[in-house]
């Protein structure tokens, strides 16, 4: 850790979770550290142990082994202190559909001890009313506060859940595949709001997802498969580390082109073009060797998706090989 790095808010050492009647652990020797204010994504295929990990970190599931500290508190001894300092958006919505949006917020605020419970919105303290109205305005649900949540769209429900989870100003906001079932516009607005919260309030955001484009927006990505951490890093680092960077080339005089590239690994790539890896070098250095006029020049910039598929595919192949 560098000297100026914020202190860690999530520290996980050797975390193991083995469900009853299961022959393999859902989470296997997981280590991770998340620093304050970071936006991290736990990325992995179905059954990778993402939700299990999140359930343990949010105190709703017991671990089998390992050490976990969240917001500076030990999970084994201070679960209640942790709960007071985290916000959670569950995979399945946890709103009471029979209550209005405001009643859901009031219930949450009272449960977390932010405000004393009163039977109506008008009787709640002014600070509560102001907070609710400000948040509702921000998300554009001001006019729907008194409507039953069952009439809300999926996007509105998710927004409401986010507003609710932030009411007690948590240090860490956990989101378990929060955009599942949302349309692209709702997803986009949800992410921009979360980014805003992270920036303005310094909230650490911990996201589990299997959507690569969501992970791409994170500060750091932890890739997991079959309960194990495969790798971690910024999306940029992961792309460079895992996926191949290469040029796709062609020329009228292909034989001369191959001679120009002598000493390099040249294979056949997409569309029958010549594929030349440039790991550890720059494309410019490679291009400088070429003397023939090129008919095709494509620089392949790896995406996180490719890195992810490469890594998870490798893991599956290794498992299959025993």
């Amino acid at each position: 850790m560098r000297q100026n790095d914020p202190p860690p808010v999530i520290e996980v050492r050797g975390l193991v979770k083995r469900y009853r009647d299961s022959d393999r652990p859902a989470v296997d020797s997981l280590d991770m550290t998340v620093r304050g204010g970071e936006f991290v994504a736990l990325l992995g295929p179905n059954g990778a142990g993402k939700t299990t990990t999140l359930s343990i970190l949010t105190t709703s599931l017991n671990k089998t082994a390992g050490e976990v500290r969240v917001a500076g508190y030990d999970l084994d001894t201070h679960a209640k202190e942790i709960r007071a300092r985290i916000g959670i958006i569950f995979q399945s919505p946890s709103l009471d559909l029979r209550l209005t949006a405001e009643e859901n917020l009031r219930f949450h605020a009272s449960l977390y001890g932010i405000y004393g419970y009163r039977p109506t919105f008008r009787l709640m303290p002014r600070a509560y009313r102001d907070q609710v109205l400000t948040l509702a305005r921000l998300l554009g649900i001001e006019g729907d506060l008194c409507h039953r949540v069952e009439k809300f769209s999926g996007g509105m429900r998710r927004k409401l859940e986010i507003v609710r989870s932030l009411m007690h100003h948590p240090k860490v906001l956990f989101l378990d595949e929060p955009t599942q079932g949302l349309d692209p516009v709702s997803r986009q607005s949800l992410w921009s709001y979360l980014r805003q919260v992270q920036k303005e309030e310094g909230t650490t955001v911990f996201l589990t997802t299997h959507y690569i484009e969501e992970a791409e927006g994170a500060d750091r990505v932890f890739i997991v498969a079959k309960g194990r951490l495969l790798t971690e890093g910024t999306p940029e680092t992961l792309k460079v580390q895992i996926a191949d960077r290469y040029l796709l080339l062609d020329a009228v005089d292909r034989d001369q082109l191959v001679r120009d590239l002598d000493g390099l690994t040249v294979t056949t790539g997409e569309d029958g073009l010549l594929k030349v890896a440039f790991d550890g070098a720059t494309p410019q250095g490679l291009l400088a060797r070429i003397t023939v006029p090129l008919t095709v020049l494509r620089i392949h910039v790896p995406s996180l998706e490719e890195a992810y598929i490469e890594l998870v595919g490798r893991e599956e192949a290794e498992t299959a090989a025993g």
Partner: protein
Amino acid sequence: MSARKEANAIVAIAARDLLVLRRDWKANLAFSFFFPIAFLGLFGGLIGQNLAGGLPFNFLQFAFVGLVACMMAQYTMMNVTTLVQERETGFTQEIFVAPVSRFSIISGKILGGSAAGLLEITPFFVVAWAFGAPLSSALVSGILWVTPFALLLGGAMGVLLSGIFATSPKAVDQAVIMVMFPQMFLSGAVIPISHSSGVLEVLVRLMPATYLVDLMRTAAYRGTSVYGPLQLYAPWVDFVVLLAVSAAFFVAGTLLFASRERNR
């Protein structure tokens, strides 16, 4: 979290149950009249008119007191077990990740379930009056004195069932029915049980509702000529059994529920 905050959470959980009850008031109202009409008005009324002619007490009144005791506990039990049913909607998650003690959560559910149970029991009074059961102020005041015990027992039974069947809303629904009917028939709520013997006597003694019904009848009939003949046990026996059973069910149910939530 301070005691004040815990108390606030208990009130919020209870208030939510009442809000939900109010939201579905039409269905709830219709349902709350079904039991008193079926069991008190029709079943109790027919037995009273056709089979209970020689009894030294008014059978409808007898059944009314017993059913009120029993059903008050049953309604509260059913309301508390919604904690498990709410797992399906994911709402239980929101409650269980809050910085509130598990005992406060369960206490909130019992308080809310009890308040709802009290509202749901009022149709019994309406039906009893409509079918001609004598309702004196002494009888009603006796019922009210024992009401907290009914709510406590019902809440504790609900907590225990929620703990045992924490992960299965369907199973808890079935368990409620399996607990409800034996309690109603074997506790003496409708049918007198003072002359039970053999297996039935054992079962009667095993039903927690037996002691509740007995205590409520003792309170309701005190100072009347049928006070003695209708009494099964000394009031202190009923009192001790109810408190002990409720405390045991509450603690065991809460620990089971919290542990089943987290130990999967």
